[in-house]
């Protein structure tokens, strides 16, 4: 079983590297560096300008750390066929799962350390705790994560009578994390966390000796975990065999009304419905626009806002381009007696609407955060010029090729 795990992990990592290379293409890396730079800059400024006595500081810190501890799940790399082929090997599964647990710990550990260091300045400016508390807090997070892994593993054994209620466990975690933000109380918190984690490990060992493994639950959990990862990749590149969800979204039907059922609207009819009801591209659009809007709210320098605004519009436009080919798999798209130029026109129309909406939102944010000045006026103009240029000139060239 150990050998099986080794083989699986190797293949898994290979595949992740392959996809990550596709996700972090040159384009995207440049955009990310830009965004991180801007975010870091605004964050540093925000910390400086913060009132250390603000009442909400510690509650927010607790929630952020709780979110950090929730990142990353147990990766078992189990496959559907395992429930048939590995059935006779169930006793060896304990060692397999041990390796899986160890492997799954790395990513959350890095994420927790990163977040803890990131929010550390916020805690230190309050001047209520010494710096070594940060280290204790991180250790506590690791212990909480360990308990969570134990609980998760326990749930994959059949007939486990003592299912911990999720809500209670969450409140407990929050209390332990909150204790880390106060002097001396933090040591009590870490001891409580340690006790709980030990208890869960004992319980897990007991269950693993006495109960049967719930293959269906474990394989299902692993499937949905991988599904989430691939859906994330799918935002940037094509993942074969992955279809995104579709939602009816009846409340959006009003937006589709203006597209009347006439031959000239064939592709617009298709693209507009596909965009609004599919979760993939509409989700991407909403996420990027909202995230961009929030980032712009924090920028108080006009040229930074302008650069970010332009970059985000280009980024959204660029990321939406593959939607043009969304229906190439469906044979009828090739059979319609409608020329390609009409198809490009329809796609341009959709893109124009979406990007103009984005430019409009960004303009409003710019005007609100920076006020009415010549620079802001010119920036707004530049945003709209970019949209028109992108749709009018760049798009036909890209799609025609």
């Amino acid at each position, binding site marked *: 079983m150990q050998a099986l795990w080794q083989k699986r992990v190797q293949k898994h990592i290979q595949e992740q590297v392959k996809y990550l290379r596709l996700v972090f293409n040159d384009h995207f890396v440049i955009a990310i560096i830009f965004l991180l730079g801007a975010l870091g800059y605004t964050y540093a400024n925000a910390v400086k300008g913060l009132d250390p006595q603000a009442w909400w500081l510690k509650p927010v810190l607790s929630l952020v750390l709780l979110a950090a501890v929730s990142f990353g799940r147990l990766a078992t790399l189990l496959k559907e066929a395992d429930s048939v082929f590995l059935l006779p090997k169930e006793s060896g599964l304990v060692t397999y799962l041990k390796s899986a647990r160890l492997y799954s710990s790395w990513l959350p550990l890095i994420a927790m350390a990163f977040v803890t260091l990131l929010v550390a300045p916020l805690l230190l400016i309050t001047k209520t705790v010494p710096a070594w508390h940060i280290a204790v807090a991180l250790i506590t997070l690791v212990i909480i994560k360990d308990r969570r892994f134990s609980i998760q593993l326990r749930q994959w054994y059949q007939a486990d009578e003592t299912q911990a209620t999720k809500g209670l466990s969450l409140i407990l975690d929050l209390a332990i994390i909150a204790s880390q933000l106060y002097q001396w109380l933090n040591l009590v918190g870490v001891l409580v966390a340690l006790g709980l984690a030990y208890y869960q490990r004992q319980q897990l060992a007991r269950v693993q000796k006495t109960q049967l493994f719930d293959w269906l639950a474990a394989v299902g959990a692993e499937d949905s975990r991988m599904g989430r990862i691939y859906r994330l990749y799918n935002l940037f590149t094509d993942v074969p065999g992955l279809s995104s969800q579709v939602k009816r979204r009846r409340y959006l039907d009003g937006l589709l009304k203006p597209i009347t059922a006439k*031959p000239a609207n*064939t592709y617009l009819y298709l693209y507009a419905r596909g965009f609004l009801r599919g979760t993939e591209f509409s989700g991407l659009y909403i996420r990027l626009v909202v995230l961009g809007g929030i980032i712009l709210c924090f920028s108080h320098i006009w040229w930074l806002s302008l650069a970010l605004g332009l970059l985000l519009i280009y980024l959204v436009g660029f990321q939406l381009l593959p939607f043009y080919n969304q229906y190439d798999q469906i*044979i*009828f798209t090739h059979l*319609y*007696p409608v020329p390609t130029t009409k198809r490009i026109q329809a796609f341009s129309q959709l893109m124009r609407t979406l990007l103009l909406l984005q430019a409009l939102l960004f303009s409003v944010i710019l005007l609100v955060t920076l006020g009415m000045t010549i620079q802001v006026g010119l920036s707004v103009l530049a945003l709209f010029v970019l949209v028109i240029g992108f749709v009018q000139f760049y798009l036909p060239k890209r799609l025609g090729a």
Partner: protein
Amino acid sequence: MSLEINQLTGGYAHVPVLKEVSFTVPNNQVVGLIGLNGAGKSTTIKHIIGLLTPQKGTITLDGVTLQSNPDQYRQKVAYVPETPVLYPELTLKEHLELTMMAYDLNVEETWVKANALLKRFRLDNKLDWFPVHFSKGMRQKVMIVNAFMTNADLFIIDEPFTGLDPLAIHDLLEIIAEKKAQGAAILMSTHILATAQQYADSFVLLNQGRVRTTGTLEELKIEFNMADADLDDIYLQMTKEG
């Protein structure tokens, strides 16, 4: 006037799957396209609907080729694929609407036809459903309704009988007969030889990318020298020839 395939050589990239394939599908006729897996049936169909470009030879439909006038050519063809493919984000009703738009059909007239077909296939109460909620057979029925509500001159039906329930098969054969009576040409590829023998007027036997022979069942019997054979026997005989 009809579909005429003349000395068609073609396939994927530079590997010719089809070699000098010639046959015609006349109006008012159902032609059965018969052959083993890999004989070239699907490739032939892909050439006819224009997903592949011939390396040699021509395909003309009522005198129009895909190269000379693609939109007019496509207007004349309706296709029911072997594996039903639907747009995941469109409801059944919207699929039909989209087809009407794409083929510039008269909306009112076509809905009359579509509603009759939907009722026949017991889909008339599922107009607002999404494809994910349809079973494979139901999806296939959607494809059939979609194709047969058009005014196409040529209907291409790829292996229609697997996945449909017996009642639906019966309905489909009836609809095919109606279209045939109205003057359409119908090309149907299938492995269900008993049904093909019963409903097709003539046959095209493909073997290893070549047309082995064409003709009615009577003509095939003479060709293979098997007096009281059925299509099954002839088919087996053909495969033995290798």
